[in-house]
């Protein structure tokens, strides 16, 4: 009897992997614990061990094949050595032309509510690469710029965002730190006071809580407390919000925490394009900037500007989709769910939705929001954070104050559940705002 070896999920957010190397051949005997392949994930290249024992009957992919979905069979192991299979080896290796078709078939069954459509053109780049490229471009231009954080150098980044930076810029400017957020954040703030431009990578923003005193009390307030003498040109960046099933302590959205603080600027990119434009603006800004990335979006591909001076000004929202019936205000990963919901609302309910991607949370583009609601007369907010005192709450205040008479329905906020993030995938789905929740909220403000 044969056993299928499936493409394993080797990280919480891995949806597909690349087969970099086979360490077994067809016909070879495999024991449990033997390394059979090297797989490149969204984070690293990992060795895959066999759990089953037997002889390799088939290899479904050849070395170098990419984007193989998780749970797709990659090899077949049989209990007995079959002398006939060896001759099939070459044929199997060449058969990967059918790969893309197979991938498309399996993608459907593998889709989750969080999945983003990555089926885009080849010359588009991932948000991960967009961030990496922008850091490198700015480091080439200005020797004062350096990056520090956990695993940013030799490991090439916990999420591979800093891949290759150590090779290009050396260990003076690409610095691995100990797991010591409070210390290295304070150190970076001191370096910024003295004139350098540090980029602090938090492995995730959850760990920035260890350092939040230095971010708020030192980085954000010193310009004011020094009567304008000492500014703090620094970027704090890293993934924010939920990843996938990493539970309460590793899945928290900090957007409203930081957006609350005068002295900080806070931005949250949603695409490769605005990741580049906003990050360059952040590095060049003489103030402390919180740059909230999203782990799920790292693999999302999109067009970027090749202009190495391309920036997106802070305080400017992007109208991701124009519409006339209802306004959805959102940011970061929820942009994509909002656009999905807008499509459903158009198809099923003939509603023309305007979707505003804030991009920048502080300063906030109140003008674009007010203008939109004056046109549509209906507005909802969609964000991943907890509901209490969220960015959406501020938008509700803004709208009631500036466009009260234009509203045809009360504003609805779509947020995560007001509980710590649960581990179980089913509860996690309930916790996070889903497309259906957005559709429901829009219908409600339209009294449908």
């Amino acid at each position, binding site marked *: 009897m044969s056993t299928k070896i499936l493409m394993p999920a080797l990280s919480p957010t891995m949806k597909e992997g690349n087969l970099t190397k086979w360490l077994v051949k067809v016909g070879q005997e495999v024991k449990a614990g033997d390394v059979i392949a090297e797989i490149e994930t969204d984070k690293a290249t990992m060795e895959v061990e066999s759990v089953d024992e037997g002889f390799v009957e088939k290899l479904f992919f050849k070395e170098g094949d990419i984007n193989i979905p998780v749970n797709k069979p990659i090899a077949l192991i049989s209990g007995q050595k079959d002398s006939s299979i060896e001759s099939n080896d070459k044929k199997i290796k060449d058969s990967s032309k059918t790969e893309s078709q197979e991938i498309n078939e399996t993608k459907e069954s593998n889709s989750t509510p969080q999945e983003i459509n990555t089926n885009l053109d080849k010359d588009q780049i991932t948000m991960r690469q967009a961030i990496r490229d922008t850091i490198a471009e700015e480091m080439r231009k200005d020797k004062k710029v350096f990056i520090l954080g956990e695993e940013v150098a030799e490991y090439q980044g916990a999420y591979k965002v800093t891949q290759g930076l150590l090779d290009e810029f050396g260990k003076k400017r690409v610095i691995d730190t100990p797991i010591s957020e409070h210390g290295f954040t304070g150190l970076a703030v001191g370096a910024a006071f003295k004139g350098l431009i540090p980029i602090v990578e938090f492995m995730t923003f959850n760990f920035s809580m260890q350092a939040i005193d230095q971010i708020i009390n030192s980085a954000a307030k010193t310009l004011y407390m020094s009567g304008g*003498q000492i500014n703090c040109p620094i970027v704090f960046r890293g993934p924010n919000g939920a990843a996938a099933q990493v539970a309460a302590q590793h899945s928290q959205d900090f957007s409203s925490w930081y957006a609350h603080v005068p002295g900080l600027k806070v931005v949250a990119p949603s695409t490769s394009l605005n990741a580049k434009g906003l990050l360059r603006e952040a590095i060049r800004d003489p103030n402390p900037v919180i740059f909230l990335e999203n782990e799920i979006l790292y693999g999302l591909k999109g067009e970027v500007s090749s202009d190495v001076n391309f920036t997106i000004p802070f305080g400017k929202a992007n109208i991701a989709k124009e519409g006339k019936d209802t306004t959805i205000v959102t940011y970061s990963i929820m942009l994509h769910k909002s656009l999905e919901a807008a499509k459903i609302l158009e198809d099923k309910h003939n509603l023309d939705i305007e979707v505003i991607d804030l991009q920048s949370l502080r300063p906030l583009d109140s003008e674009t929001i007010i203008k939109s609601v004056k046109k549509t007369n209906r507005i909802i907010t969609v964000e991943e954070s907890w509901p209490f005192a969220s960015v959406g709450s501020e938008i509700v205040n803004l709208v009631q104050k500036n466009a009260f008479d234009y509203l045809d329905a009360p504003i609805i906020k779509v947020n995560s559940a007001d509980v710590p993030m649960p581990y179980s995938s089913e509860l996690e789905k309930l916790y996070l705002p889903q497309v259906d929740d957005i559709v429901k909220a829009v219908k409600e403000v339209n009294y449908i």
Partner: protein
Amino acid sequence: MLKIRRFEERSAQLYGMGHIGGFCHLYIGQEAVVVGVLMTIKKNDSVVTTYRDHGHMIARGLDPKKIMAELTGRSDGYSAGKGGSMHMFSKENNFYGGHGIVGAQVPIGTGIAFTHKYNGDKNICRTYIGDGAMNNGQVFEAFNLAALWKLPVLYIIENNKYGMGTAVDRAAAGSELYKRGEAFGIKGEILDGMNVYSIIKAAKKAGEYVRAGKGPYILEVQTYRYRGHSMSDPAKYRTKAELEEYKNLDPIEIVREEILKKKIASKDELAKLNKEIIEEIKSAADFALESNFPSSEELYTDVYI
């Protein structure tokens, strides 16, 4: 030292009159520490300290008028009236505060030292730490980073025996604070903080060590504050006898005796100097009280640049 003493006495007076508000931490008794260290400093070296910072600024040669203007919340103050006693800075003099959060200045000073090393400018950063901060986690994180990356930072622990009202031995397990860098390989020594000569000697040696690129160094300076932790602290947690004991070791008196013994100046000359300083500080206070409060527009400036 005398200027610091007279400045702090005047500050206490203005606080009592309601011209200085909030928290105000006086440096009386500790003057030898900052003066001794500052006598070994180079122009482009950096300094960062705690909220007990008036004396540090005066020692750095900053203008008592502008310091007093800050204490009284006026627009002519070093922070334009927005920082107050605990948050004063002078970038042009490489004085980076004045930090109100216990321990926060330690990673910051380490980061300033990081910049000196990054720029290869051979300057060093002197980072002052109160004994209370020596039980704060970020201090040890900073020690680790400084030792790991051999940063040119001289840590000066001003051990004035009390973290607010809590005696060092009630707060620190193993109260030999200068040894707290040992696990990171940071050398440390303890010295008499009432005697400016011993401080100059030790600070010079330690400064040379740090400037030579050998990494951080710790000086624990045993000192004493005559007043309470802040103006609102009656200091009932210590005895009058203890206070008197230290007053008998007064750092200014030690220098005064030395000057007279070596005939550097006469009694009359010292009395004249004292009078001049009193006048200077009085005019600083007058300047501050005549200075304007910040205009209402200033509320919204300096949040961003």
